[in-house]
């Protein structure tokens, strides 16, 4: 059976014109990004901007954490996630952040040598292995430390399973009350916390996810991922039929973060 010639292949005529216009219609740049974010793949979206290893979707949870934080902080990720030492919880090297408070802090975390070996080792995600040496993430870190020339090769690989990410989150959050906690580490903890909430929501555990999101601002005074949190709240409230709460979150997102990539969605919700 042969298909007829499509109207759009005709050179003239209103039908051809209309169909060509329809075929040219393309989604805007935000739609796919927001969908990937909602699915927990925010790192993948920004991988082309230079997050090494994030090209593999399997690496999304951990790398997404970093790039999501950069995105929601209005910063630009120009480098790659690297593990410079096997002794810190997370080392971010080469995260070029243009402007913002996070720049200096993240860079300082990246550059800081660590006092003890093997704090966290995350093996390949496909083996879903995460080893957390809690002794090595005890709160007190010396003010200055000698460089560790013979640090083992980086062991934080790009592919981290959710369970591994959770292990990192637990390790980092265990230090939240310590005043010496670096801003960069706090950011990592924030990202991990939000990713946990997101994972709960994705798993259909709405009340637990929402509960985590509700506690976010209290837990993290800087609340640098607040636009992301508000966006997730909107999503979750909408999915659970809590339209008033969704609108409240949307109003706050629009009012406080009008230039956020998520503000458009919030405005559309409020326009309904």
């Amino acid at each position: 059976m042969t298909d007829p010639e499509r109207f759009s292949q005709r050179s003239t005529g209103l039908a051809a014109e209309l169909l060509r216009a329809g075929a040219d219609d393309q989604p805007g740049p935000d739609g796919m990004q927001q969908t990937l974010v909602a699915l927990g793949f925010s790192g993948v979206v920004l991988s082309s901007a230079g997050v090494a290893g994030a090209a593999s979707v399997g690496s999304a949870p951990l790398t997404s954490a970093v790039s999501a934080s950069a995105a929601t902080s209005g910063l630009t990720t120009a480098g790659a996630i690297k593990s410079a030492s096997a002794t810190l919880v997370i080392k971010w090297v080469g995260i070029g952040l243009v402007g913002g408070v996070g720049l200096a802090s993240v860079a300082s975390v990246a550059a800081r040598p660590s006092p003890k070996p093997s704090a966290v080792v995350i093996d390949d995600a496909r083996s879903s292995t995460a080893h957390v040496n809690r002794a090595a993430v005890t709160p007190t870190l010396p003010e200055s430390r000698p460089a560790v020339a013979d640090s083992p090769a980086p062991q934080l690989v790009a592919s981290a399973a959710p369970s591994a990410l959770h292990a990192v989150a637990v390790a980092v959050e265990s230090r939240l009350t310590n005043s010496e906690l670096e801003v960069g580490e706090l950011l990592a903890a924030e990202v991990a916390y939000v990713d946990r909430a997101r994972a709960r929501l994705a798993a259909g555990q709405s009340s637990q996810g929402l509960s985590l999101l509700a506690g976010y601002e209290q837990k993290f005074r800087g609340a640098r991922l607040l636009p992301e949190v508000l966006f997730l709240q909107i999503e979750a409230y909408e999915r659970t039929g809590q339209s008033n709460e969704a609108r409240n979150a949307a109003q706050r997102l629009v009012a406080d973060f009008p230039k956020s990539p998520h503000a458009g969605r919030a405005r559309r919700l409020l326009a309904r």
Partner: protein
Amino acid sequence: MDELESSPPASPDRIAGLVRAHYAFVWRLLRRLGIGEGDADDAAQRVFLTAAERLGGVEKGRERAFLYGVALNVGARARRSVGRRREEPFESAGEREAPEPNGEQLLERRQARALLDRLLDEMPEDLRVVFVLFELEELSTRQIAELCEIPVGTAASRLRRARDDFEERVARAEARRRSTGGER
């Protein structure tokens, strides 16, 4: 459906790959099936969130057909609950299509799309779906038959009727335009 819901979760690779490969298809399909521009992103997102939950039970190579089914359901629900919004309250055409060089062409294309959507809105649903898949997504009748789970002959016959129907509507629109001095 129950079988799908109880299926094991799909891998992150597969979910992200699904979004990347088919987002534009789903978005355009939703638009041409009657979802307003301001709601299409949200509706597309709902399609993929729903699809992600059930993807584990979908055979490899059948993702597009599966997405199509989900999109039809989501689209129908969205149309019922929100209704079609023809205006863009917050996003101007210029913002959406900034790369377009010529403002006049842009406006014309936007008007053309508005007219296209109006004509498609008036078509019977079964004809509209087949028409959109053939004329806009450039699927063959065989592919359409597979997606819609109908015999190829039925797809071909619906397409024929859909094209006749569309041409008639276009002719009427053209006549109206002429009678109103060029206004669409």
